[in-house]
Each structure stands twice: as C-alpha cells, then as structure tokens.
C-alpha cells in the first residue's frame, strides 16, 4: 500500500466508512481494511469507534488487529517496502538482499527510516516465485531484485515520482 495518499485522521470519515460496511456478515476485517487504506494505519480512536459500532469490546477489536500482520497501529513511513523472505526467494538470494536492505536503509524490519520515508516489512511470498527475489512497494511488485536494483528503487522513492513519458 502506498501511504503517501493517506489522509489525516478524521472521526467523521472513519464513522462513515464503518457505517458503510457494518451490516455485512463478518464485517470486522473489511472495516479494518477500509480504515487502514484511508488513514494508513488503525489509530486508537478508530478502535473505540469500531467497537461501539459492532457492539464488540475494544479488547476484541484490538485482538483481531494484533493477530494479522497486515494491520498496523502506528503511522508508517510514506512508502512501505516489503521484502519476500519465503523459500523460493531464499533460493534466489533473498537473504543477501535482506541484509543489504537493512544496512542501506539503516533500519530493521517493522521500523521506519529517520526521514519517515520508508517502512521496511517482511512478507512471506508475493506469488512471484519464478523471478525472485521479489519486493513489494505500495501495490507494485518488483522481480529479480538484487542490491543494485534495490538501491535504484529506493532512490526513486526519495522524491515524488513525476510521470513524464510513461
């Protein structure tokens, strides 16, 4: 998910998102996705709103959020970069890529660079297993990523992309 388009927390918007979805059977996951897609994370204030709207306890909502790797309760950097750690990418050199990425960005997994630009996350398989190592930046998957390619991609995230020709 590219988070640069995410907006600041607004309870009214959040409540509208919740109201749109709350009548669905098993509505909690769709609601959590909607909130995170809009605000880039699930703030504490949202937990209270969701709990009230679904007549759940805040602990129950929190329990669901904490179970799933995808949901986060802290504001991420402007970009989320996920590196595949699974076996097919390991066979193609992802362990070296992980080490390089951590050193190049100066962060470990689940951390954000000091300039708040990039949050680094692990991911277990992006389904691009014939052409690894694979990483995901926002909703884009990149294949055959070695250290050089990683640095190029990160460089491209430092400024807002300008679409000139393509």
């Amino acid at each position, binding site marked *: 998910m590219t988070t640069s388009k995410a907006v600041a927390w607004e309870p009214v918007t959040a409540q509208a998102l919740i109201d749109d979805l709350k009548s669905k059977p098993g509505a909690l996951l769709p609601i959590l996705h909607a909130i995170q897609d809009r605000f880039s994370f699930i703030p504490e204030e949202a937990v209270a709103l969701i709990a009230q709207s679904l007549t759940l306890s805040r602990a129950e909502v929190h329990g*669901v959020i904490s179970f*799933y790797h*995808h949901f986060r309760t802290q504001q991420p950097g402007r970009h989320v970069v996920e590196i595949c750690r*699974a076996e097919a990418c*390991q066979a193609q050199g992802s362990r070296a890529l992980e080490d390089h990425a951590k050193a190049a960005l100066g962060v470990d997994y689940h951390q954000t660079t000091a300039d708040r630009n990039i949050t680094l996350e692990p991911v277990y398989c992006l*389904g691009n*297993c*014939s*052409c690894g190592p694979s990483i995901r930046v926002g909703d884009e998957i990149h*294949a055959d990523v070695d250290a050089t390619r990683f640095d190029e991609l990160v460089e491209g995230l430092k400024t807002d992309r300008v679409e000139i020709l393509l």
Partner: protein
Amino acid sequence: MTFRIHVPSDTTAKARGADRIARLIEIVAQEHKIDVEVRRNGTRGLYWLETLVEVDTDAGRYGFGPVKEGDIESLFAAEFYKGNVEHSLAVGLVEDIPYLKRQERFTFSRLGITDPLSLEDYQAKDGFKGLENAIKLSSQEIVDTVKESGLRGRGGAAFPTGIKWQTVLDVESPKGQKYIVCNADEGDSGTFADRLVMECDPFMLIEGMIIAGLAVGATQGYIYCRSEYPLAIENLNSAIQTAYDNNLLGADIQGSGKHFDLEVRMGAGAYICGEETSLLESLEGKRGLVRAKPPLPAIVGLFGQPTVVNNVLSLAAVPFILDKGAKAYADVGVGRSRGTLPFQVTGNVKFGGLVELAFGPTLKELMFEFGGGTRSGRPLRAVQVGGPLGAYLPESQWDTPLGYEEFSQKQAVLGHGGVVMFDDTVDMSEQARFSMEFCVAESCGKCTPCRIGSTRGVEVIDRIRAGKNVDANMELLMDLCETMLDGSLCAMGGMTPFPVQSAMQHFTEDFVKNAASATQAKEV
C-alpha cells in the same frame, strides 16, 4: 491495416516491466505511424520469457521475449508487428514452444490467450459452457459428475471434492443458508497458480463457484483472497461486476430460477488463514484461530452453516469437468491422482513458470525437461515440494512420480504443486531453522506443540548450528518433531516437522559440520 499485439498483464509480467513495454509499443508505433492495437492478455506462464510480446497472424501468434525497454526500437526496425520476422528475441509460434506444447492445459486452456476481464473472450473459448450444462442437471447429478472425475482437493489435502460436496448437499442447514467458500489464501512459497486463475481467468473461478452453489444448494459464495495479491482482488471484483451485469450472478441466473451471490473478502497477511477453519473464523471477522474438527466445515462451517471450502484450483477445474465430461478429466493421471495438476516450477530455476500436467511424470522430468535445471548453473541439491510445510527431497528421490500417494510414500507431499529448487550453495540446517521460524511467526497459537514447539525448535537448531552437543540436540530435535507431528491441532504444527526432518535425514552433513569445528576449537 491494424496489427494486433498482446502484452501480458499478470503480476510477474508487470514486475518485469510489462506495463512500460505496452505503453512504449504504443508510443513508438505512433511515432512510426504504424497502426497497432495493444491488447493486454494474461500470461502464458512461461516466466523466463516475460515480457513476452505476441503478434496476431493468420498462422497463429508469433512471440518475442524476454522483451526489455531497450529492445523496442530494434523490434520496430525488424517490423516485429508482422509476426514471422528475424529478430534475436523471436521465439516463433508461441503455441509451438515445447515448454507449452508438451503441457496438458485443462484448467489453464485460456491462460495468456484471452483478455482476463473480457467476458466475450471467455465465452469464445468455452467459457460458461460448464454452467450451461450444470443448469440442466439436478444437484445430485452435478455432484455425481464431480465424483466421477476423481477431482481431489487441489489446496494440498487431496480430499475428494465430490464427497465433500455430497456431505454439504445431504446436510440440512438450520438457517436455510449454505455457503461456498473459495480458499484463495495461497500462502505457500513457490506457488502462484491460484493467483494466475484470479488475475488471468477470473470468470473460470466464478463459473466454478456458481456450479458448486447449484450442486449443494448454496446461494452465497465468498472468495477469501490474501492481501498480498492486490491485482487478483482487483480483477476478481471487476469480473464479478461484469457477471452481475450479464445475469451470470444474482437472482434467476440465465433464466434458470437459481440464485447465487458472490463477494471477495481480503485476508490480512496470516498464513494460517489458508487452513480452512482458521479461514472461516477470519471470514466471520475474528482472529484466525484454528477450530477443532469435528465438526467438519461441511456440516458446521461459516456462521455455523454447512459450507463447502475448496481451493481455487479445485473450483477452477469444475467448469472443464462439467463442459467436457467427467471422463475426459479422469482419463488422464496416475493411480488415484486423476486429471491434471498445475505445477509451479520456481526458486533457483532456469525456465520457471506454470506447467500443467496430468499426474504421473517424475519430479526430475519437471525440474529438468521443463525447468532446465538451476538458473545459477550450479548443481541442483535440494527441492522443496508442496510449500513451507513440504519435505525437502534429495537427488535419490527425484525419480518419484508426481502423484499424491507416490509422494506420501516418501513422507513428502505434493501439496499445491509448488516446486522450489535450491542449488548446492544452500545450507540445509539454515532451511530447517527457517521452517521452525516461519511456524513461530505464523502459528495461530491455539495449541501448545505448534506455538511453543516451534520456538524451542529454533533454539535447538541454533545450538546444533553452533556445534553444541550436536548428537544430543539432534535427538532432541527429532523428538520435538514427533511431538509436533502427533500433538498439533492442524497441519501448521503437524507438518512443520516435514521439512525439518527431511533436511536432517537427507542432508545430515549440514547439521553436523560445525560439531567437528567446535570439537577442534576445544582441542586447540
């Protein structure tokens, strides 16, 4: 005249630059004043050739690949848009590429040929013929057809699909509501066949689910797709909307009086939600904790109602079976493994991609005759088949025929058909450690052998890798694996020992190598 050019649009092709290639072709064609129509097909699944650009001709589609941005000018200079021309990237008629020609594409017959979101394309290639037949049959007749086809659960457990459907058909729903749930939480490393169905032929999955609904009397379906597959979700949603707009979903489908609604739900990055009961919990909006079985989901499933939970590939095989007949499907295969399995050849492989074959050839044929050996050019050493819970196979087992029973005789699994190849630089004790580490990260935490056993497993392997009391720790690790195997509630803890034990058994040298150096260090 207009030249028609096809550029693939699946995740891997895009990851290799297909979107920019498609755009560049349009721009350069305009500059050269050549009239081209660029269409976006799925992918053929011949991934080493991506981006594979295809050109329509009277003789068939000519291909060029792997095309990179820098090749566009030379392609235009060679007038590639005419098809059969000389160019270093020319691969000839795509259908004649041996890798493709030697496959038996039952499920993936349209892969890479059609525009994934075009209902017209789908229908022109036998799409919805299975449904047309199913509408004329009784529920029992549909179930019987699937039983006769010999189709078994393609998610990995290989349970006969027809028998599962029969159970759901026979049981009465307390609330008068049954469900079809498609397990699209394809978390196994080395697999992407579900993704290909959803991204490149989504109508096939929709058709399979409607037929399943007719077979058991279910009127609501859910596709639970992992959040790591954004394009699959986008394409499914688009195809579902088209299906509703064309009276293929909703009330009174094609005037049959039958009703079926379908919705995509997104997972949230939990491998365990590929386990069917965990998936149902997640769909209900809860933590994905595994349920104890019995009761089976077929009897007490989603929201407590009778539920068919099938893998994407199982449901995707159904339109073929209902269209071409159970016999056409059952006629190929080996032993009790009937029909085809779309294998995915991945990892350190030269020619990686999708290889749909009837069960029966050996693993070696798949890895060498299709895969062409390793991409690094180094000797192949170990192969993990069936995802992160599947065993590592050494060279002595590569002659095993690709069949469910054939693999289980070797304490291995075929699973979802993923084949991950490793060259001789792999350290198998590191791979065993990763299997335990993965289980730590992904265990739902409900049962102790899985939750605690995996953590202890990482610790014991770390001691072995450090050369500490290697013999005793190897014994302890084997014992721990047995406990996890016998004592876990589901396959997560129950199968994590497979890769660990197979690595210990077949690649012992990687575990004991530091024992010697530790002893030597002590002596010095």
